[in-house]
């Protein structure tokens, strides 16, 4: 079905939804008379899929979330919903010849994206591979822990969401809670996900992570600059994933993703595929690149390359 058709169908749904919402609001009012919190609980419960929201509804939801998060974390939290920028298709490059396996990207990502600290959720997984065997995932070590990196005879391969052009994860979602945006970023609506974890079974890169428990995010460590589809605090029981730091990369002033910024050896490159002058285009056009699990036709926008 084309996007247009889907959108047209949704218009019909809205009226139904409104009626239902009205009914629910009524019931809610009956069930919790005079209770302040109940209004926002029911609003959250009957919230529509993000892509079906009109601007006024969306602004209302963002305001509600900002209020909730600000109260919860005791600081002014911003929840943006910046849309994709025209003419931008984000791409990522990772230079395997430079990566030293220090995992700074892993923790830089956690700090930026408000992942749960207890239990720990990491969007980036760094694999230690044997130089002799090459990129052989079956012999990857996930939990290497030497005093010092890099180690003799090994190289390191960080894996995160590959932002596939042909994502197997979005196709399988039974409720369209995850989709690919126009700038190529695959996002999740945490308020719509039902937590069936079918997308996790479908992802060939282990890029999707589940909140098995209410995320433990200390207020002091919470990053208040958030995006609705990105690093805002997540509820329990939903799936989350790397969004190329959507809260940074979509802004007009345009910051790099946290993992790019934090990398001490400059192994990570990020940019606009559609811009012929971008660094990422140069790397793809001039260096030896490969994509992970090419045979699955997922068409990642995450390239591994050897700069030297």
């Amino acid at each position, binding site marked *: 079905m084309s996007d247009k058709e889907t959108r047209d169908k949704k218009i019909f749904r809205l009226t139904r939804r409104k009626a239902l919402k009205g009914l629910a609001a009524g019931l809610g009012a009956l069930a919790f008379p005079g209770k302040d919190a109940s209004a926002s609980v029911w609003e959250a419960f009957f919230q529509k899929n993000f892509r079906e929201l009109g601007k006024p509804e969306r602004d209302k939801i963002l305001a509600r979330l900002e209020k909730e998060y600000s109260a919860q974390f005791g600081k002014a939290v911003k929840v943006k919903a910046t849309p994709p920028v025209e003419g931008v298709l984000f791409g990522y490059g990772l230079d395997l010849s430079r990566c030293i396996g220090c995992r700074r990207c892993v923790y830089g990502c956690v700090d930026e994206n408000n992942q749960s600290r207890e239990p720990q959720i990491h969007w980036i997984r760094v694999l230690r591979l044997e130089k002799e065997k090459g990129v052989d995932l*079956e012999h990857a070590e996930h939990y290497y822990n030497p005093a010092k990196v890099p180690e003799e005879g090994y190289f390191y391969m960080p894996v995160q969401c590959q932002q596939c052009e042909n994502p197997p994860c979005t196709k399988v979602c*039974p409720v*369209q809670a995850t989709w690919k945006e126009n700038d190529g970023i695959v996002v999740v609506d945490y308020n719509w*996900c039902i937590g069936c974890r079918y997308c996790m079974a479908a992802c060939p890169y*282990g890029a999707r992570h589940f909140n098995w428990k209410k995320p433990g995010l200390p207020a002091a460590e919470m990053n208040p600059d958030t995006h609705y589809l990105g690093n805002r605090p997540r509820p329990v029981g939903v799936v989350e994933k790397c969004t190329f730091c959507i809260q940074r990369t979509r802004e007009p002033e345009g910051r790099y993703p946290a993992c790019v910024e934090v990398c001490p050896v400059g192994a990570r490159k990020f940019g606009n595929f559609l811009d012929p002058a971008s660094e990422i285009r140069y790397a793809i056009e001039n260096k030896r690149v490969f994509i992970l699990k090419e045979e699955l036709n997922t068409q990642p926008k995450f390239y591994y390359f050897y700069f030297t």
Partner: protein
Amino acid sequence: MKKVWAFLKGCFVLLRKGSNFYYAWVTFLLALMAIGTLAYISQLYSGLIITAMRDQVSWGFYISNFTFIVGVAAAAVLLVIPAYVYKWGPIKEIAILGELLAVSAMVMCLLFVTVDLGRPDRFWHLIPKIGILNFPQSLLAWDVVVLNMYLVLNFVIAGYMLYSLYYKREPNMKYVLPLLLFSIPAAISIHTVTAFLYNGLAARPFWNASILAPRFLASAFCSGPAFMILLFQLIRKWTNFEIKDEAIFKIAELIAYAMFVNLFLLGAEVFKEYYSDTAHLAPMKYLYQGLSGHSDLVSYIWTATFFNITAFFLFLIPQTRENFITLNIGSILIFIGVYIEKGMGLVVPGFVPDVLGEFYEYSPTGIELLVTMGIWATGLFVYTMLLRIAIPIMNGDFHVGEDGVHPYIGDQRFLVRRAAMYKKEPEREDLLAQ
């Protein structure tokens, strides 16, 4: 409409009547259901962290049970085909028991999926129009559709037949027969779609084999009927419902064929993986041999293989097939064998090693076991209730009374050992006289 209401009211009156054993059995099931509910509440409270599932193995015992039960439900069709396509009397008499089993199994399936959800409060997102059902892209959406359809279909067929019998009318086959015939492809579809749900994931080589759906069907036609053979013997022992030996032996014969196909397809799969010896072999090696020191499933899968092969021969040889001792041994072996093979033996190796080569060995926690037990008890409870109504109706012990309004209830006891039943015949006549 008034008649439907009178029928339902009669059913509720009937459900409350029964022998002490009936009460004990129902109480037992309700107790297990209560324990399961408490376990589920604690899971809701803590989140799914209380299970052993993690990012590496993101589906576990619940989805394994779900997959197995879909097979049991699909197997009702094995009664419908001989009964209504070939019009074979002995099975026609019991086809309704198969349909009711399908209804109970579907209830279990829906419960297993629900307890596996991270956000069960958002289940309504799956309802078309109110939510968004991602149909036809998502195979899970297909599964939601076909499972509910199969549930409604069997419920309507069995319900209508029983309702007609209650009012002493011949069911209008003009309506029922098309539905019955439709239930045959529907049964195949629930299992095919469930297989496709796994099959379509290129990320998981263990599932991404075209042979998966045929294997699913073949094993379903083993486990479901084996379960029915055991159930039917219990039913005819504990209720006054007649089930002919030849019906049971015919089902056993069908199992033998299905098990042959099942073992053949398994062999084809094992050959392909081992002989080609590609990177895709890892999950199968993990399952059958253990890999890199991880071998939790090895003893289970060999038990299953041994059980299935033994049962195949027991059902193949007429002498052992028509001897109730070996028949029952065979049925139990198949039930356990397929439960392992199609449950944990199918789901877990899909995740081990995971897509980045990590080994996380999954085995369910106590909470998962308790919730699962609760759902099995719920399934048996639903089936017991359905049989409590269906069996008296089919025996002519429960129908509308002379006045055309109030029910006549001849079978006050339901679950009684049959030998005892005959002895107490006079008492039963006393009841009738009242």
